[in-house]
């Protein structure tokens, strides 16, 4: 599966997702469709502005400490949500941020959906790392020589 992202008006790499809960909420029967910023500086699944996500009526699952960009630490609520991308729907813990203005999709989001993220100056592609992808990746390494393999292994 290949999903296309886009650059938003601030040139953030972004992706359109659908968020929903366990029960269909009368006010939002189709869930909430939002553009999230693909943020590899965020290790989590999804961080969401609490005011935008409250109408979904997601069940609170817990609380977690989170360090913000200014190094301050805050307790944040977490809720269980279903995220749909490219027809695939998976559940994860969404961190509810009362100060955020945008949705963030972090490294755990990429891992949960088993996505490889490919960024160029104009294009953003999320490629599901299935057998076909693995075969193509191996072929690319074989075709471009062992130098690329060492670069890839050196990247954490």
């Amino acid at each position, binding site marked *: 599966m290949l999903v296309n992202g886009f650059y938003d008006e601030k040139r953030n790499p972004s992706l359109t997702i659908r968020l929903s809960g366990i029960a269909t909420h009368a006010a939002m029967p189709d869930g909430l469709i939002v553009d999230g910023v693909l943020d590899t500086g965020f290790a989590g699944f999804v961080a969401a502005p609490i005011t935008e996500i409250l109408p979904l009526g997601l069940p609170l699952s817990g609380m977690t400490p989170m360090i913000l960009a200014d190094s301050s630490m805050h307790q944040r609520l977490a809720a*269980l949500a279903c995220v749909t991308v490219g027809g695939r729907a998976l559940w994860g813990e969404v961190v509810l941020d009362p100060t955020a203005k945008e949705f963030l999709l972090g490294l755990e989001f990429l891992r949960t959906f088993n996505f490889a993220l490919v960024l160029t100056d104009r294009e953003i592609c999320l490629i599901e790392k299935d057998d076909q992808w693995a075969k193509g990746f191996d072929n690319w390494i074989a075709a471009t020589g062992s130098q690329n393999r060492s670069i890839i292994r050196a990247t954490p």
Partner: protein
Amino acid sequence: MNDTVIWDFPDLRELGERGAEIYRKKYQADFEARYRGQVAAIDVHSERAFVAPTMTEAGRNGRAECPGAFFYFVRVGFAAVYRCRR
């Protein structure tokens, strides 16, 4: 909405503090020796803990044993589960 509005619900603040205290007293020393870097989900009512590589997996493991539980999530050996750079 700001932090003050959220923290006007004292029960939530208490639940978070209770979770942190359970972790410190019952699990921290043992977990830091065995599960550094993993995420622990502490059920604040039963005081049971569930460890997994991610918050989503720790929550899933916890809900399988304690449906409807409210968890305090902590990354073992670190101050916070996540750092947000934005």
